[in-house]
């Protein structure tokens, strides 16, 4: 049993989701409780990854390996290191919130809704724990399916367009990855990701593979200019969908850069780091300005997600310039900052979408102009909202600060101009977030409907409170996370810096 914890984490929610489907929409109450129970159970189990984790080694832990498709040498090979483990816990954590957040809000086919999230949880854990490229790819693609349905069935008015756009966009991105994985298989005879890390590739091969990976991961992250699916998907998705999308699915892209791009194509990563950094900086600055003028809250948060994820890619690709053999801290700051930013963005964007969800559930509008003076009727809620907004704006003491701080410090060592551009988010990020806060929460009540709002109930309160704790703990004491990821990042850094030529 000790060794099959990852399998349990993957398959328990998937089969649990199946069970919930079988319960049916008619028995919604039971379905909800069962879903919640499963998600909590999975979360608790996932904590054992943390407690049992040996942070002194970069080797894969909790590994499982059994043959699957022998013709291709494809193994059912699972394992986690410091890069994937926190993301798995983030996944299990977010799923609880999402299930709780959809508790009474989702009246349309509630059991299916819960089941979709449970299944997606399992699939995403699969993505993060796969050590075989095809297994990874299978989970990667399969996780699109529940999301497609979530957006398409439970989404807003324009959900069909958004769902299909999301699906095709990400699908298109990932097929290129598939081709390059196959290419490497043909070279090495193995689909094992770890073998691919050691596979030697020429400059041209690396360049092709790098861009193929780029297509897959950049779309997912999303990086400029392949980001336009995100605002649509986020806006149309139900609250839970937006949360998972922002909190976890975007991380799959970042994770891809960590797990694939850097170790497999180090030379190409070095070669194209300039392009990547440029795109990241465009995402940070340009998207910040775009976010500023949004009138739809979800769209604003969606754009802010793009901007924040720009820090991830910036941190990752700044390492080559930031690295200095005498003091590798610059590169570490970038990479670990990217990692921390991913986790923290998981909390904050989830919180922000939940905040919008709370409002949307009440007035069924995402327009900023509908609101105004919400604090007058929902003071507790406003407290949370302002806190998360501050976290979104990167206030020290919240998790939002840590990643940005680290990445900017790392970027300074790469090139001061990167840091200058990245640091504009301090201003722009605060501007769009707080301007929205101002228009939604502060001020007089202008819309009579706002007068009728009820403050958050205890369920909503607990969800937001849990996230608050997460945001604050992560902001005040990030060291446990850093400790877990450090050795793995150190190993990754060596892989990324060691030329394969």
């Amino acid at each position, binding site marked *: 049993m000790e060794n099959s914890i990852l399998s349990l984490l993957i398959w328990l929610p998937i089969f649990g989701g199946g069970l919930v489907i079988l319960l049916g929409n008619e028995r919604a109450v039971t379905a909800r409780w069962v879903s919640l129970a499963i998600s909590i159970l999975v979360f608790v189990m996932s904590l054992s990854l943390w407690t049992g984790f040996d942070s002194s080694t970069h080797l894969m832990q909790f590994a499982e390996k059994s043959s699957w498709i022998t013709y291709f040498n494809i193994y059912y090979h699972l394992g986690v290191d410091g890069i994937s483990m926190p993301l798995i816990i983030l996944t299990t954590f977010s799923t609880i919130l999402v299930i709780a957040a959809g508790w009474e809000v989702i009246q349309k086919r509630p059991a299916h809704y819960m089941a979709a999230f449970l299944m997606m949880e399992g699939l995403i854990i699969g993505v993060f724990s796969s050590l075989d490229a095809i297994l990874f790819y299978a989970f990667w693609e399969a996780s699109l399916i529940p999301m497609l349905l979530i957006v398409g069935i439970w989404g807003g008015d324009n959900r069909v367009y958004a769902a299909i*756009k999301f699906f*095709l*966009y990400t699908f298109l991105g990932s097929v290129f990855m598939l081709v390059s994985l196959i290419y490497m298989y043909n070279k090495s005879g193995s689909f094992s990701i770890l073998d691919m890390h050691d596979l030697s590739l020429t400059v041209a091969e690396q360049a092709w593979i790098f861009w193929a990976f780029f297509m897959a991961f950049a779309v997912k992250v999303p990086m400029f*200019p392949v980001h*336009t*699916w995100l605002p649509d998907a986020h806006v149309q998705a139900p609250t839970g969908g937006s949360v998972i999308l922002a909190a976890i699915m975007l991380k799959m892209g970042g994770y891809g850069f960590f797990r694939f791009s850097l170790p497999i194509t180090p030379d190409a990563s070095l070669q194209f780091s300039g392009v990547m950094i440029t795109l990241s900086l465009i995402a940070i600055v*340009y998207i910040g*300005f*775009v*976010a*500023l*003028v*949004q009138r739809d809250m979800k769209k604003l948060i969606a754009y802010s997600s793009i901007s924040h994820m720009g820090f991830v890619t910036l941190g990752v690709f700044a390492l080559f310039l930031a690295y200095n053999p005498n*003091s*590798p*801290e*610059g590169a*570490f*700051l970038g990479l*670990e900052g990217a990692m921390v930013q991913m986790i923290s963005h998981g909390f904050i964007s989830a919180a922000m979408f939940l905040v919008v969800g709370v409002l949307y559930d009440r007035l069924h509008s995402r327009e900023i102009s509908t609101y105004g*003076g919400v*604090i*007058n009727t929902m003071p507790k809620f406003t407290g949370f909202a*302002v806190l998360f907004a*501050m976290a979104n704006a990167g*206030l*020290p*003491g919240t998790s939002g*600060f*840590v990643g940005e*701080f*680290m990445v*900017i*410090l790392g*970027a*300074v*060592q790469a090139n*001061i101009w990167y*840091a*200058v551009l990245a*640091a504009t988010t*301090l*201003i722009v990020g*605060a*501007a769009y977030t*707080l*301007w929205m806060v*101002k228009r939604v*929460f*502060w*001020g*007089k009540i202008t819309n009579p409907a706002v007068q009728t709002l009820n403050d958050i109930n205890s369920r909503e309160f607990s969800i937001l409170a849990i996230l608050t704790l997460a945001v604050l703990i992560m902001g*005040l*004491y*990030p*060291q446990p996370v*850093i*400790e877990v990821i*450090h050795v793995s990042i*150190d190993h990754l850094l060596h892989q990324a810096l060691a030329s394969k030529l």
Partner: protein
Amino acid sequence: MENFYLTIALSPLLGAIIAGFFGRTLGRTATHTITVLGVLVSTVLALMVFNYHVLEQGAIFNQNLYTWMQIGELNISVGFLVDNLTAVMLVVVSFVSLMVHIYTIGYMHDDKDYTKFFSYISLFTFSMFMLVMSNNFMQLFFGWEAVGLVSYLLIGFWHHKESAIEANLKAFLVNRVGDFGFLLGIGLVLAFSGSLDYAEVFSSLDNTLNQQLWGMDLITVICLLLFVGAMGKSAQVPLHVWLPGSMEGPTPISALIHAATMVTAGIFMVSRMSPMFEMSDVALTVVMIVGAITALFMGLLGIVQNDIKKVVAYSTLSQLGYMTVALGVSAYSVAIFHLMTHAFFKALLFLGAGSVIVAMHHQQDIRKMGGLRKKMPITYWTGLVGTLALIGFPGFSGFYSKDMIIEAVHFSNLPYADWVYYAVVAGVFITAFYSLRLFFLVFHGQSRVDPHTESHLHESPLSITIPLIMLAIPSAIIGYFTIEPMLFMGWLDNAITVTSSHLPMAGLRNEFHGATAMIFHAVQTVPFWMMIGGIATAWIFSIYRTQWADWVQKKFSIIDYVLQSLYGFDRFNEIVFVKGIKKLGNFLWKISDSALIDSIIVNGSAKFVGFIASIVRPIQTGYVYHYAFFMIFSLLIILTWTLFMGNNPLLVI
């Protein structure tokens, strides 16, 4: 010892948490008791710390509390550095904060968010402690932003006022502009030193020698970037625009945050970084000039303001400018000295103003006041003390600090120091003028109060007057007692570094012959007569011949226009930054993102595929002879390809 300092920081935090989460349950009395007690504990302990470090010359305390993060060799921790500078700051912050807490009991009595307010100001106190006790840049930045957060929340405390929530957004964003530079500065610090710990950074300053960035010495760039942060927080031109707006918040926080403590964080920070600033004359010159501009021009604006708090606010800006000038001329201890005295008398003035405002039922226009002296004696007398301290009337605390700054500039060997000297001296006149104008208009002369309010006018309750009195005492005397130890007996020496090439402090030391001597010496100095001139002018325009003021205003209408429009900073920001950035954002969104990327490239390629499909589809005409022709034509192509083209042509023509 560690727990000792920790208690100082945490007891207001505890108060804040209790007040914030349980305030409504506990009720008003319990809430303010708890928070006041929290700050009281801090104050007492701060005094003990002051005693230990400053008076008993205790050792510097520098210790990490916990590791915030450890990356390779880089350790970023949360920890405390307590030296004499910190000790002074602790006393100032805790004392003013305590006074404000007490004052708030009366001032906010009728507010429905009474408990929340206490929670906020306690939280602020905690943040400020974290800022001043920090031993590293990360924590400094944390405190720096945390006080900004509380400031944001408190400016917008009356969130139903549109002007308040405009102002808090503006305050936060302008501060963020400063933080932008500050963070980059921190990044560069880390880059050259590999550490964020003050001690380690200062010990590795040699690394920056001979390093260039952007055509300047690296250290200059770093100092300038850090100073950008200070400019934001300490409201130096051109990042001063938020401070007048912040007066939209309740008066206690104007006193605490926007006069006495938070805005001085920039001054504190530069003093803390004195080893770095000392390495760059360019940076120091910039600091000095920015300070001088602020001191002079912001003071001028005070003259034309009619809102009681705005006048005090511009005076604060001007005084901050003085402090910055002091920093610029390497007279850090003088800056801190002025910081301290200013904290007391400006808090006093603000609280006094608040007292007047409460009495006037929140009427803030000084043109509608007058003759309040009789009705509010305590406010009047404490206000007088504050005003005299502010204008630097000999003997009052402000006199010592301001005079020292002017003298220090006099001794400075930096370029442009002579111009700065004229500016700060002119500033004395202006300060006296607007301060006394305010004082006269409010307390003297004919009452212009509307009758209804007039009938209810009375002195404020004890909770308001006690802090006034408590603050009036140091405002009056603290300068006299502390000037010598603080400036010349090395109170701050273990925190501040001054390079020998920077002369002002040595010059001052030579000139200084005791606090009492200074008073007598004052009458022979230019600043004194400038001050007298200012007082006289104020008397003429406000009391003796009020119509002259209108005449002057008409005669110099251009100057008046410039001053009334606040030199156009706000309009510039409105047009360039607010509207311009919105336009840019809309352009990027509508044109670049939606139209170009999404519609043309993304959906366009989808549409393109559809277009191809609509072209290809009609080939399937439904007519069987077309199908046959298609097959045969394909046969022709394939045959030709196989025979003549392809990889292995069978026939070579």
